[in-house]
């Protein structure tokens, strides 16, 4: 068992990375239900797989 702090001691490295975070995307995601967030992940997966297939096909044509 342990207690999790809800506020974390700022880590300078993490704070530096935080400047690059697109908070508008987070705000849009927070408007969605959990189910919708996960459905979006599935849609992204499908897109990534299609893209990979397309790129492999393209590379295959280049090699032949």
């Amino acid at each position, binding site marked *: *068992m*342990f207690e*999790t*702090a*809800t506020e*974390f001691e700022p*880590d300078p*490295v*993490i*704070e530096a*990375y*935080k400047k*690059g*975070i*697109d*908070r508008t*995307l*987070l*705000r849009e*995601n*927070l*408007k*969605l*239900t*959990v*189910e919708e*967030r*996960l459905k979006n*992940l*599935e849609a*992204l*997966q499908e897109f*990534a*797989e299609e893209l990979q297939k397309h790129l492999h096909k393209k590379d295959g044509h280049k090699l032949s």
Partner: protein
Amino acid sequence: MATNFREVIRALVDSGAEFIIIGGVAARAHGSARFTEDLDVVYRRSKENIDRIIQALKPYQPYLRGAPPNLPFEFDARTIQHGLNFTFTTSLGPLDLLGEVTGGGTYEDLLSHCVTYDFFGEDCLCLDLPTLIRVKRAAGRPKDFEAIAELEALVEEKTTGNDPTTSN
């Protein structure tokens, strides 16, 4: 190959397995915009639960990810009992089956740090946002820095903004 989250979660839930979703999928459920390809779960290491996990996942031929092919690996209760944390490939995609996580401990330790969310129609335990940050921080992997920054930004957005799905 990306994990078929829906099918893996369904198989685990249908078998009655006790597990907690952590990692990128948990982060996504909390509102992360980052892409993830694999599923990480912490499982209860009781004999009964290990049997349920075996029953749930065996049809999907789990094998040690990155290991040479044709090793005499058996996905059975003895193997799981003798190990702790496993990174598998399965016919449904990559799956990390963890008995313990750095900074978080075992299933039992994490149980009071979970929220129940609907994952593809199944009610599942999901590590809460503060604890997700805690375990990622404890892992100390440079590849996680950006993910931690995003999770902390999410906490800030939730405390200053309005997330209708959770009280975290």
